[in-house]
């Protein structure tokens, strides 16, 4: 789950990280009032779940409250990577002597949280990794021990030369690690961590991504979810326990398992079609999930055919068949359904479908080819 910059900063602040003050506005007037409260120059920052906000014009300096109103007015409502900006963060402008990057992610290879730090702050760490990998220092954290004080200090010595800043940075790194663990994050970064002309360290921008699997046991983090900042169909899908991603094509797909779902998209393209979505009904089968899946897909007017590709394992084919039958009773489905069902309780499923007037195949190639034909009669397989 993505959370906004202002939410990430709130978490960091709660763990002691020095984060300058900031308030969120949803209107230009509110932005003006907040800027006036701070006095002096402020930065107006779009709160949206997309990278590259700065380049897209979503981060602007304002010299005073009037300018803050103007800037906020321009940023609120703009689209960044397809997402509408509905909130801006207003924060006092800081004088910057230098910028560093500090972050921690869960790393597959070392099976541990890994800290990355760089003296090249203020730009995406991916860019630094690509252009100047030696400018990044890494350290894997053994989760059984946590980030040890000497490790934090060692990382700090890679960024700063004086003992005062090294100590301050080591403290921030330990606080960042605490925040990372306490919020169930998969990524937590401060970029930039600035040094002011007076030598103080401050977290000017922050990003925290939450491991979705942590949300059940962290209701306070789940409460940070901003459904207004994601496409509505994805919100509905998530609430129904489905993984759904909207794509550009006209072939709706309902698949169980992420790998098979991706392979189904690949096969649709292989046969000359275009998938309208990625939709994984997941491992645990429940007829209601199928109903919801069909409801979401049929909401997309571009969809010309819906292709089921179900391979039963922990998902039982009969549950899926029941879901299809149930959905056709409750939703007006105006496009053809093509169905592939194999695996656990396949025979029962076929009985259920046949009884309701549907047929099904056991071949993935066959069902996808059929879907492509129906979606686009002119294209041959």
């Amino acid at each position: 789950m993505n959370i906004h910059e202002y939410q990430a900063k709130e978490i960091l602040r709660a763990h002691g990280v020095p984060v300058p003050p900031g308030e969120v506005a949803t209107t230009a007037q509110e932005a003006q009032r907040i800027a006036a409260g701070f006095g002096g120059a402020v930065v107006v920052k779009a709160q949206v779940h997309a990278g590259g906000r700065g380049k897209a014009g979503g981060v602007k300096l304002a010299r005073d409250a009037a300018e803050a109103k103007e800037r906020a007015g321009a940023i609120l409502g703009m689209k960044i990577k397809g997402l509408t900006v509905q909130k801006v963060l207003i924060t006092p402008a800081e004088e910057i002597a230098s910028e560093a990057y500090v972050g921690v992610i869960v790393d597959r290879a070392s099976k541990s949280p890994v800290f990355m730090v760089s003296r090249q702050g203020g730009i995406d760490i991916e860019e630094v990794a690509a252009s100047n990998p030696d400018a990044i220092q890494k350290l894997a954290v053994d989760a059984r021990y946590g980030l040890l004080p000497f490790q934090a200090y060692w990382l700090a010595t890679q960024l700063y030369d004086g003992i005062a800043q090294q100590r301050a940075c080591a403290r921030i790194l330990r606080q960042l690690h605490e925040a990372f663990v306490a919020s169930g994050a998969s990524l937590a970064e401060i970029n930039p961590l600035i040094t002011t002309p007076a030598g103080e360290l401050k977290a000017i921008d922050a990003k925290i991504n939450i491991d979705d699997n942590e949300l059940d046991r962290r209701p306070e983090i789940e409460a940070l979810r901003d459904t207004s900042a994601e496409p509505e169909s994805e919100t509905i899908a998530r609430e129904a326990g489905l993984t759904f991603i909207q794509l550009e094509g006209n072939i709706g797909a309902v698949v169980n398992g992420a790998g098979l779902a991706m392979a189904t998209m690949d096969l649709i393209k292989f046969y000359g079609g275009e998938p309208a979505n990625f939709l994984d009904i997941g491992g645990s089968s429940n007829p209601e999930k199928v109903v919801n899946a069909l409801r979401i897909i049929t909401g997309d007017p571009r969809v010309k055919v819906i292709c089921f590709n179900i391979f039963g394992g922990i998902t039982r084919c009969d549950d899926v068949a029941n879901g299809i039958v149930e959905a056709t009773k409750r939703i007006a489905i105006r496009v053809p359904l093509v169905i592939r069902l194999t695996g656990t309780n396949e025979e029962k499923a076929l009985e259920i479908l046949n009884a309701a007037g549907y047929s099904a195949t056991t071949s993935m190639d066959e069902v996808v080819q059929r879907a492509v034909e129906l979606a686009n009669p002119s294209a041959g397989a």
Partner: protein
Amino acid sequence: MAIFIDESTRLLVQGITGRDGSFHTRQMMDYGTNVVGGVTPGKGGQRFEGPSGKGCPIFDTVRQGVQATGANASIIYVPPAFAADAIMEAAEAGIPFIVAITEGVPVLDMTRVYPYVVEHGARLLGPNCPGLLAPGRSKVGIMPGNIALQGNVGVVSRSGTLTYEVVYQLTRADIGQSTCVGIGGDPIVGTNFIDCLAAFQADPDTRAIVMIGEIGGTDEQKAAEFIKANVSKPVVGFIAGQTAPPGRRMGHAGAIISGSAGTAAEKIQAFQDNGIQVMKRPSDVVPLIREVI
């Protein structure tokens, strides 16, 4: 022979009385797997009734189950909040091979579980995996037994249902499998491609290997290098997510492309560079395997 499991596998089922646990225990019993016991706290002393008169005792703890039955493998169906604990319980009780089916285990839990399992000398398969199937011998997991056929092709995959698809294609073409292993798609899993490839290389009953990867991470690239250096048996590979849009998470934590690392193109290139035949679609497995064996 097979890898990790065989006829001598004595299986304990953690979470045996749950919906998934009880269903799949019956399926495994049906397949002939030697399920020696189950674990559900508070139900110790009861008996799990399986199909055709089969059944097994239930214990409160894994330790009790191991003492009573001599179990040498465990499979876990408990909910995600308890999965880390269940894995560690199995490892501490001395179970050498642990399969965690549970989907949705927090990855930070796994950063502690993994070293714990290693310290206890155990092998973990999963979590968020379909388990494994040695056709005709033993089934430890949720793969449908009827789609597999005993034979000499080893299958290893990060995906669940996509594995079934490939196995199904092989079986329909009368190409049998030695063992089919789903390693799971989570960022941190106990057993990776390389572990399975090494086991298949050492397994005299495996003559060729099918490896099914997906976008995200660099495990397939590392596996490809490992194959070039250490695997003399022919390998056929597939990568799911060739047409996935970049930057979006595709269902499981594994399937994400960030930056330039982990794209399908990169992985396919690594396969080709290391002498691995590449499938364009799942059904290509049949002609490609026929070529090599």
